[in-house]
C-alpha cells in the first residue's frame, strides 16, 4: 500500500518537471499558434549552458540558473524577433520547418561542443538528500524543489496572463492579431516577449533536468514529446491545465515503472493516447 502511495507521490513530483517542460511550449503555442519543434532541444541547450556555467564559473547550479535566466530571455527575444516572426503567417508549415531545422542545428552544435558523452550538472548533496515523511515514505529534496518551482512558475504565468496589461495584450493578439494592432499592440514586440518568457521557463526546466539526470546532446526530441503530451493531456488555454497534464503524465509513468522498469515511458504514452481518444481537447481545456 505504502509502496503505491510512494509511487504516486514520486509521479506527482516527476510531473512537476514535465509541467516545467510543457509550460514554455504551451505559452508559445497559446500566444502565437507556433509549435516549436526545437523546444526539447532548447531545454537541452539550457541544461548544457547551465553545466558550462557551473564548471566554468565554479558556482552552484542556483547561481548558474540566475545568470542563465536573463541570457535565456535575451536569446528568446532575439530568436523570435530575428527569425521566427518572419515565419509567422497564415500557413502553419513554415514555423514547423524552421524550428525543425533549429532542432537539428542545436543537436549538432551541442554534439560538436560537448561530444556525445553523457554528463550532468553537479549539485552536490541536493541530488540525493531526502525528506522523510513517515513510514517508508520519503521524498527527495530535488524533486520537491522542482515541483515547488513548477507551481511557482504556473502561478507567475497565470498572474502575468490574467492580471497584467502585457498578459491582456498576449491574449488579445492570440484572439485577433489585427484588432490588437488597432489597439496599439506591436505584435512583433509582443511575440518576442512571449518567446523570451518561454525561454526563461525553458532555462529553469533545463537546469533542473540537467541536475536530476544525465544529459546528452540528442535527448531533445524525447523531451519535446513529454512536453507535448503534457500539453495535450491538460488541454489548451490555462497554465494550470498544462500543469495538471504534466502531473498526470508523471504519475502514469511512475505507475508504469513500478509495474515493470521497461514499461514506464510506455504507460505514459498509453495515458496520452487514452486522453486523445476519450477527450481530444484535453482534460481541462479553457478555450477554443
Amino acid at each position: 500500500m505504502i509502496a503505491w502511495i510512494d509511487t504516486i507521490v514520486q509521479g506527482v513530483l516527476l510531473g512537476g518537471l514535465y509541467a516545467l517542460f510543457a509550460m514554455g511550449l504551451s505559452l508559445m503555442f497559446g500566444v502565437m499558434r507556433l509549435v516549436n519543434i526545437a523546444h526539447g532541444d532548447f531545454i537541452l541547450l539550457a541544461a548544457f549552458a547551465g553545466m558550462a556555467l557551473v564548471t566554468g564559473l565554479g558556482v552552484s547550479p542556483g547561481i548558474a540558473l540566475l545568470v542563465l535566466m536573463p541570457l535565456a530571455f535575451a536569446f528568446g527575444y532575439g530568436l523570435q524577433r530575428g527569425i521566427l516572426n518572419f515565419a509567422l503567417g497564415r500557413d502553419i508549415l513554415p514555423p514547423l520547418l524552421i524550428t525543425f531545422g533549429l532542432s537539428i542545428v542545436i543537436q549538432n552544435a551541442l554534439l560538436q561542443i560537448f561530444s556525445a558523452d553523457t554528463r550532468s550538472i553537479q549539485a552536490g548533496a541536493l541530488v540525493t538528500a531526502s525528506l522523510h515523511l513517515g513510514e517508508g515514505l520519503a521524498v527527495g529534496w530535488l524533486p520537491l524543489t522542482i515541483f515547488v518551482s513548477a507551481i511557482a512558475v504556473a502561478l507567475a504565468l497565470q498572474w502575468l496572463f490574467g492580471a497584467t496589461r502585457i498578459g491582456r495584450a498576449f491574449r488579445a493578439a492570440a484572439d485577433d492579431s489585427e484588432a490588437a494592432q488597432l489597439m496599439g499592440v506591436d505584435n512583433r514586440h509582443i511575440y518576442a516577449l512571449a518567446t523570451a518568457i518561454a525561454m526563461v521557463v525553458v532555462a529553469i526546466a533545463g537546469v533542473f533536468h540537467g541536475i536530476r539526470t544525465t544529459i546528452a546532446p540528442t535527448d531533445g526530441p524525447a523531451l519535446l514529446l513529454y512536453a507535448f503530451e503534457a500539453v495535450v493531456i491538460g488541454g489548451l488555454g490555462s497554465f494550470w491545465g498544462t500543469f495538471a497534464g504534466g502531473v498526470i503524465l508523471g504519475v502514469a509513468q511512475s505507475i508504469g515503472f513500478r509495474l515493470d522498469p521497461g514499461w514506464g515511458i510506455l504507460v505514459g504514452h498509453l495515458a496520452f493516447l487514452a486522453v486523445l481518444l476519450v477527450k481530444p481537447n484535453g482534460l481541462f481545456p479553457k478555450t477554443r
Partner: protein
Amino acid sequence: MLTTHNLTAFYGDFQALFGIDLEVNAGEIVSIIGANGAGKSTFLKTITGLLKAPHSAVRFEGRDIGGMPAHRIAQAGIAMVPEGRRLFASLSVEENLKMGAYTRRPGRFDLDAVYALLPVLKEKRTQPSTSLSGGQQQMAAIGRALLANPRLLICDEISLGLAPIVVKEIYEILGRIRKEGLTAIIVEQDVGMARLFSDRLYCFQEGRVSLSGRSDALSHEAISKAYFGV
C-alpha cells in the same frame, strides 16, 4: 485634421482605390457611404495602417502617416470601431475595454467615464465578451475605442446586423459624446442615418469618390446616382 491626397490602395495586383481625396476637419463628423465593394473598408484600412499606402497620401495632424504600422497610428490618436466589432473573444468585457486603453493616451475617457456612458457594460463587466447581445457588443466596441482617447474616431458600419431601435440608441450615445467635441468618420450602410448624423458626406463608388458635400445639402436623387454609379 486628416487629409488624403490621391490615395491609392492595392491588394496584390488588384487596385481597390483610385486616388481618393478626402478631408476631415477638427470637430467634424464625416460620413462615407457606398455599396459593398466600393472601397470604404479598404479606405479605412489605409488610414489605420492595416494596408500599405503611399507615405504622403495620408496626412494626420500635420504628419504624413501613409504606410506607418497600425500600432503607431493608434498611438498617434486614430481609433477604430472595426466592422463586425471584433471584440477579443477570450477576454471579459472589462478586459476588452482595458485593451482600448493599451496606448495609455491621456484624455477624458477612462473606465469610469465609459461605464457612466454605457451602464450596461458595467453590469456585465466580468462576463466574457461573447455573452453580450449584438447591440451590447457594439457598445463595448465603441467604449473600447473611446478608451484610446482618440483625436479621430472611426466607426465602420456600426449599424450592421442590429435592429433599428438598437441603432438609434447607439447613435444617441454617439450624439452625446459629439456635444463634447468629437471628430469622426462614420462608414454606414444606412444612408439615412449617415446623412442625419454627419456634417459632410462622401460617396464611394468602385474605388473613387463619386459625390461629396454637406450632408444636409445633397439631394436624395444625387446620392442615389452617385451610390449606384448611374
